[in-house]
């Protein structure tokens, strides 16, 4: 079987061959423990890690000493939110986060609620963006932390990080940013944006899976309670032997992404607009989810009216995408992110996320346009809702029995 065309770059990315090349010597030949201070095996590993730390710091304009390596963005989110909340418990017990965050953030907040903290889940606007006024209104003297993602994983919208950071600094609350989908995709400057903690994932930027980092600001200093206890690695914030090959991979992935970001974004934007235009010029009742301007180049999330998302994915099985449709999840609920943006349930069921990236070609985009247009037309011929539209009846005006 031919593998489908990969358009799910928000789920994960392949490791860049240059990244793998850089990692290879660190498995067999240079296997030393970077914490071994007494011999050359340890020294060379430690040097490699210093370089990786610089490369990771550089892509977010941080100091290498502010980087804590973790197993991925989920761990970074847990460490940042739980760690800060617990450390500053005496100062306040209130956390703010939008309803469209990743589960790694939302679930950590739920967990903290069970531990007696108070969490405000901030609604977003219909374009998916946080409203600064409502954020400001939500901050109380009890608030210690605001956690807002850089780029949404489903819709690709970019939050106004600089304005959020300025507000948080002014209100003297810490600002954690889950930037798993943002690092390497948009320019991030932790100082200009007043970000205090920032989560990074390796496998979202063509690095290996199982590695990530948390940026923890030194000036003014942010402290947190560790989750992993042991040898006191990473300045006591995250114990555990550093996995040299993975770190070398993450560092190289950051180096490449930083160097190539500008030109790669130009290329991706052209491809995405080609895809968007190709689909929207040939089909009616198609809508873009999320802000049309404030979004990353590699994401196109669209709803195909009157065509259910899962059946559309079956019809376009030559393309690997994901859907906000309930039927793709065990819960039978459509995407909570789209629902939080006020996308009605019906349209949420019809959404498809096309994620393009470093290895997507123009020929693939053109092929996908053809497949999608054919599939939507075929499914609409089969759709009773589409039939109503053709007869001039809007299904939304009818009474439907929930089931």
């Amino acid at each position, binding site marked *: 079987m031919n593998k489908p065309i990969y358009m799910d770059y928000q789920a994960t990315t392949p490791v860049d061959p240059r990244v793998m090349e850089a990692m290879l010597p660190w498995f067999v030949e240079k296997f030393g423990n970077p914490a071994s201070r007494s011999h050359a095996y340890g020294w060379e590993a430690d040097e490699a890690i210093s370089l990786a730390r610089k490369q990771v710091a550089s892509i977010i304009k941080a100091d290498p000493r502010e980087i804590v390596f973790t197993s991925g963005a989920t761990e970074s989110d847990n460490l940042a939110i739980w760690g800060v909340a617990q450390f500053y418990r005496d100062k306040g017990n209130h956390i703010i986060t939008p309803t469209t965050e990743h589960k790694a953030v939302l679930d950590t907040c739920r967990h903290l609620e069970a531990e007696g903290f108070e969490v405000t889940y901030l609604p977003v606007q219909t374009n998916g963006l946080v409203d600064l006024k409502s954020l400001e209104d939500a901050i109380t003297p009890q608030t210690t932390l605001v956690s807002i993602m850089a780029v949404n994983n489903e819709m690709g919208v970019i939050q106004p990080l600089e304005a959020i950071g300025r507000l948080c600094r002014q209100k003297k609350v810490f600002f954690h940013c889950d930037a798993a989908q943002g690092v390497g995709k948009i320019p991030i400057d932790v100082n200009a944006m007043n970000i205090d903690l920032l989560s990074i994932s390796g496998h979202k930027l063509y690095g290996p899976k199982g590695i990530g980092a948390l940026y923890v600001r030194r000036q003014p200093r942010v402290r947190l309670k560790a989750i992993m206890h042991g040898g006191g690695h990473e300045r006591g914030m995250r114990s555990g032997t550093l996995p040299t090959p993975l770190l070398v991979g993450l560092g190289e992935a950051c180096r490449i992404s930083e160097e190539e970001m500008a030109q790669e974004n130009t290329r991706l934007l052209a491809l995405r607009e080609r895809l968007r235009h190709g689909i929207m010029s040939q089909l009616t009742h198609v809508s873009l989810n999320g802000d049309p301007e404030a979004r990353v180049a590699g994401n196109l999330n669209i709803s195909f009216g009157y065509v259910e998302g899962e059946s559309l994915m079956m019809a376009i099985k030559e393309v690997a995408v994901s859907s906000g449709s309930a039927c793709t999840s065990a819960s039978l609920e459509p995407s909570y992110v789209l629902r939080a943006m006020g996308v009605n349930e019906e349209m949420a069921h019809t959404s498809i996320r096309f994620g393009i990236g470093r290895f997507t070609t123009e020929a693939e985009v053109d092929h996908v346009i053809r497949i999608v247009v054919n599939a939507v037309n075929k499914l609409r011929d089969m759709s009773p809702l589409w039939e109503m539209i053709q007869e001039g009846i809007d299904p939304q005006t009818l009474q439907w029995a*929930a089931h």
Partner: protein
Amino acid sequence: MAYNEKVLDHYENPRNVGSLDKQDAQVGTGMVGAPACGDVMKLQIRVNENGVIDDAKFKTFGCGSAIAASSLVTEWVKGKTIDEALAIKNQEIADELALPPVKIHCSVLAEDAIKSAVADYRSKQKGA
């Protein structure tokens, strides 16, 4: 999720897609489900003078299993009397398509569609 072969077959080669004339007194139209829940099935049956369903058509907005269940039901009801058609249970549909628990509601919807189509046909006959 990997799909069962029978679901795939019905999904890729759906039987009896289309519409019958809903004004026709011999035609019963059932519409069940809701767009907000992600599935809407329209099932139409035509009943001949002997009380036998001689044609059936469907249109479905829904996942692959919902489309497969509707397609299957159109095959099953053809040639049956109304009472025989009403005897089709969702469990038989689920078994035939080997639906996983999370998709059982698709078979329930298909059974409801039959009932709804029959009810529409009967009310037309009463009115006539």
